[in-house]
């Protein structure tokens, strides 16, 4: 049941409580962005604590909860073995509150698998309680602590706890947690000791090239089976690309990597491209938006596209590729080996002059289903060329994304006409 942002308040919780009570088959309840408050949770718990309740997933993000709600949440965790997911981020629960929550986790009845505590105003002091809970909870698969000022000391402690814990952790999110290169040896240890770990997110932490080098040691370890790696806005430069290249060309499990907003520059990108041509590079999704790239690296990227059959999603927007760069990219896109189905070129300094080539790709590349050209000054001329391509039955696009592009009323009319001519193609603006 999805009730996000429905203007619900604590008063509605009495009704919600009886709904939960009378619907034992209810498995998921989403109440994000409603001013429920601590009082609301109190009412809600009556329903949540009924023995017949078999709720599995509960979302209470941004519900104006404080530490006072944690006692209630503790009792729910202790009483409901059916609950496998709890999302309570964006509430001022604080360290004291979450310590109480952790007591609930310790209860043998609790079979929680996914715990989301982003933006909960947690501090370093929470780690001791978290580690104790992790030791006691082998069922835990996903832990998100992003956007809490934990700091290196706490993160190192947490990592040591994770290595010792018997839980087969699959997802660990520590974005914007005040991590520096100091923590990276310990995070690396988690990578090399937990073959269960598939998803690591440490974006928005100033780990720098030094930190990345340490992380790569863990990433390259044979025990590491990482699939998704989020390293956006980590203060990385082209110097990181040597180590990253080694990971790309050896870690066959690696499927998705985000390097957004790191100053990799053309030289860094070229190194990554070399690695992506290796047969062992099985990467499917690459995010290099806003990485200081120019047209100069497009030849290398194009070269990848002409040999790499695994890459399906490429985000390369917010780089000054220009028409020249994109034209070169399109050459690679058209190669029969290229299996890119989703391409993001937002804010790349593309103008109308490039649209003929892009239109050609749209009608030739049958597997290209998603194309983003937002924030580019395509003008009426350019957008009309794209529309012409959409009309072509050979165009198999599902989504053409054109956010924040200015066009005149003639284009408006054409877009309306396209809604009827090609209802299968969603043009998003």
């Amino acid at each position, binding site marked *: 049941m999805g*009730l*996000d*942002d*429905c*203007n*619900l308040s604590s*008063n*509605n919780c009495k*009704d919600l409580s009886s709904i939960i009570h009378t619907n034992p088959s209810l498995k998921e309840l989403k109440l994000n*962005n409603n*001013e429920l408050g601590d009082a609301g949770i109190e009412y809600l718990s009556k329903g949540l604590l009924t023995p017949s309740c078999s709720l599995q997933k509960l979302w209470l993000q*941004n519900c104006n909860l404080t530490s006072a709600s944690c006692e209630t949440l503790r009792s729910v965790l202790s009483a409901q073995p059916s609950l496998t997911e709890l999302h309570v981020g*964006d509430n001022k629960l604080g360290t004291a509150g979450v310590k109480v929550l952790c007591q609930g986790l310790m209860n043998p009845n609790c079979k929680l698998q996914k715990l989301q505590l982003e*933006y909960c105003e947690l501090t370093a002091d929470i780690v001791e309680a978290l580690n104790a809970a992790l030791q006691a909870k082998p069922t835990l698969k996903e832990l998100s602590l992003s*956007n809490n000022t934990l700091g290196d000391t706490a993160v190192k402690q947490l990592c040591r706890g994770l290595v010792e814990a018997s839980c087969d952790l699959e997802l660990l999110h520590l*974005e914007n947690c005040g991590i520096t290169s100091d923590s990276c040896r310990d995070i690396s240890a988690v990578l090399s000791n937990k073959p269960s770990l598939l998803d690591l*997110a440490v*974006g*928005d932490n100033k780990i720098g090239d030094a930190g990345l080098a340490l992380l790569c040691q863990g990433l390259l370890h044979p025990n590491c089976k990482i699939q998704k790696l*989020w390293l*956006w806005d980590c203060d990385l430069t082209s110097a990181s690309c040597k180590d990253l290249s080694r990971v790309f060309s050896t870690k066959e499990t690696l499927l998705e990597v*985000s390097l*957004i*907003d790191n100053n990799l520059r053309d030289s860094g990108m070229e190194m990554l491209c070399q690695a992506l041509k290796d047969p062992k590079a099985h990467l499917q999704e690459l*995010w290099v*938006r806003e990485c200081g790239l120019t047209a100069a690296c497009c030849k290398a990227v194009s070269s990848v596209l002409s040999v790499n059959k695994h890459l399906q999603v490429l*985000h390369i*927007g*917010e780089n000054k590729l220009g028409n020249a760069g994109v034209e070169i990219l399109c050459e690679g896109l058209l190669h029969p080996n290229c299996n890119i189905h989703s391409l*993001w070129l*937002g*804010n790349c300094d593309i103008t109308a002059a490039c649209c003929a080539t892009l239109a050609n790709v749209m009608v030739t590349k049958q597997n290209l289903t*998603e194309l*983003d050209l*937002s*924030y580019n000054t395509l003008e009426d001329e350019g957008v009309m060329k794209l529309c012409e391509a959409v009309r072509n039955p050979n165009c198999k696009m599902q*989504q053409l*994304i054109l*956010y*924040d592009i*200015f066009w*005149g*009323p003639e284009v*408006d009319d054409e877009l309306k006409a396209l809604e009827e001519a090609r209802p299968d193609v969603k043009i*998003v603006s």
Partner: protein
Amino acid sequence: MASWMLCIALILTAVAGAVGETRYEKFLRQHVDYPRTLGLMGHRYCGVMLARRQVTAPGRPCKPSNTFVHAPAEDLVATCTRPADSMGFHSTSTTMDITACRLRGGDTRPPCNYRARQLHHHVRVSCLDGLPVHLAGTYASVNES
């Protein structure tokens, strides 16, 4: 039970508003929030507002960036009467309160998580028939250093 009806009504109104709206109405929906919606601080402002205004929605990719202007719509309409620059954009005579939302992490699949920056910027718009229909960017006042 009245709250349920309200919730359904809100959803229906929002959907109806998005279909068959004019370019100007769309501009207001995506870019104008005046007075600034209360009770939403920091990053929450962006996530909640973009969802409420249907800029982000299930099935739609997360918009990488979006700016909300906290000034009366009339002020932005008045901007269209000011002389256009070489690219055809009109700039506001004064700075305005704005919230610049930027997608975090980059994942374009909902749920969309944003960073919010509160700024005082001049706002640049494109106009059609005397009405703003496109936000062409914002910039700090040249007097500020």
